[in-house]
């Protein structure tokens, strides 16, 4: 397999890996729930990019999958933001350090 068959495949996957790692790092290091949320979106979209890039080789099913992911991401964003709102109303804070009710 080489670049002639799949243009820009290598750079696309590389970008996707960088974006995904940034997302993971953000989830791990940041404490603000909103930022965390954005980072998760970032990871999802990094995956989307991978799907699209690889669809050149494996047909349209990868691109279809992207629509699924975007739908789920939208739903997740709706539910997630609602939860964050509820938590903020309850705690007056969106800092993860203050949210540890499930400690064993």
């Amino acid at each position: 397999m080489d670049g002639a068959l799949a243009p820009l495949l290598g750079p696309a996957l590389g970008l996707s890996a960088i974006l995904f790692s940034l997302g993971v790092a953000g989830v791990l290091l940041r404490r603000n729930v909103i930022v965390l949320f954005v980072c998760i979106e970032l990871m999802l979209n990094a995956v989307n990019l991978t799907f699209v890039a690889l669809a050149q080789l494996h047909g349209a099913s990868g691109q279809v999958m992207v629509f699924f992911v975007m739908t789920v991401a939208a739903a997740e964003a709706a539910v997630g933001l609602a939860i964050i709102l509820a938590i903020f109303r309850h705690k007056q804070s969106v800092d993860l350090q203050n949210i540890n009710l499930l400690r064993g």
Partner: protein
Amino acid sequence: MIATQWIWLAVALPLAGFLVNGALALRRTPATRAVSIIGPGVLLGAFAVSLGVTLGLLQAPPHEPHIVRLWSWMPVGSLQIDLAFQVDQLSAVMLLVVTGVGSLIHLFSVGYMREDPGYARYFAYLNLFVVFMLVLVLGSNLPVLFIGWEGVGLCSYLLIGFWFTEKANADAGKKAFIMNRIGDFGVLVAMFLLWRELGTLEFARIADVAPEALTAGGAVVTAVTLFLFLGCTGKSAQIPLYTWLPDAMAGPTPVSALIHAATMVTAGVYLVARTNVLFAMAPLSSAVVAGVGAVTALFAATIALRQYDIKKVLAYSTVSQLGYMFVGVGSAAFTAGVFHLVTHAFFKALLFLGSGSVIHAMHHAYHATHSHEDAQDMRNMGGLRHHLPVTFWLMAIATLAIAGIPPLSGFFSKDEILASAFARGAEMPAYYVFYAFGVIAAFLTAFYMARLMVMTFLGENRTGTEERRHLHEAPWIMTGPLVVLGLLSVIGGVINLPTFVGGHHWLESWLEPVTAAGAAFAAVELPHGRTELFLVGGAVLVGAVGLILGYRATRARRIPPAREAPADTGLALVLNRKYYVDEIYDAVVVRPLVWLSRVVLWKGVDEGVVDGAAVNGSARLSRGLGWLGSRLQTGQVGVYVVLFLVGALWVLRAVIR
């Protein structure tokens, strides 16, 4: 005359009596009249059935036992155990003794126990005892016999502890039960061995199969018989398990007469006679049986010399006489053992009921004056001849019978046992020693019985001046049975008169079909002519001298009442305290066992291992593991994400490989 098939009626009647009396015992109002009719009534009915069946046997003595199968009890593969009754010559003799003497004692109890608040309960237990005793003597195989064997033990326990509100009585019941349990273990092991070796537990089949399947004098038959005999030492109060019987006197006196003198304690002798083929095939076991019997006869007789409680004297006398019976069956003279069993049932029941009559009078006298003296202590009696003439004369007859004075029943049976032991001496010299023990015991028997009679009935009265006016003879319902037993004690010997008085050993030929299997291996040839007369004369002389010496020795001394009596010293104290056997058993067996149970088993195994390590340990372990798990639940999303990531990478690595 009744067909043998109806023998179940003899068991069913007392069982019905038990159920009805038991139901009446649960009611609040005492139903004295109904109980007085039902209790002895069912026994008389059972006696009538037994008599009818025996008459049927007499008309046509069978060579094979009649087996009456009621139902199949344990059909397990090749082990087929039926609940079946065996009617033959031996069980007929036992039937008559149990129901006959039992009926008399039930009648006596009507007078003796009438005022007791537990009257109905008493008769319920007594009826139940007869049920189990009849199952014991009728069972056609060892397991059915064992039902009866355990059942009479249960009833014995219930009746010894009849007045259970006093701890000593309840303890005596427990002691009897536990001592018997040790023996029952032996019977069980013997049953297992027999099943493995012979494949049958039916008595009739054992007699057929054993001579071929087992080697005479071999290890197996010796082990089986020794284990059976262990059961006998428990049930029949022989060394080393005899100590429960004297304590069993805590029960009502008619119970002592029925269970602990006439019937239950003779079950061991019956068992040996029933399995005579096995004992005949094991000369070593037979020698052990005779030896233990002889030693017990002598040992118990010496203890009886120094007891003051009238029932304790009779209790040790019973142990001693049971020893005689075992000398008989151990000398392969199975008939002689059964013969003594029968005559002993007569005169010992008479002695116990007589002592019951005495205690009844003493108790009423002390009750009338609110005295707390011991109504059973012979030192408080004396001169009762004038107050209880009927009891005195009847007990005098029984004393002569037990001392072996001709022509009373005890003379014939005891003489036959001693002669058998002597005859066996020709083959095994040890039997001469057993014979000598028997003769000495016969002397002591006469001695302590003379002492008992003198202390109770002769001399000055020591009851107390106020109490003396209240002493009176028992009512006819109590003296009536005594008269019948007195008659039987006199003429009981006729069932097996020896040839030298013109008899034909009737019981011997009657039991011949039962003892034939054993006689094939070991038969006693009783001495004849000069030797026989010498033995008989010696036995009579010993008995007579014993009576005279006992009379003179007891009359010669002034007997102070119990509260003024000086303490015994020296040998007298040792005898009075029963050679400290109870104390020795306590120190050697009971205390170590209690220590083991408390310190090792309770504190160590139960509290330490089971409770501590197993139960609480597993709880502590799961709690610890749960605590460890809960440490992972920080509540911090970041930690979860890290863990998730690590896990995802791990899986990824495994997939890519």
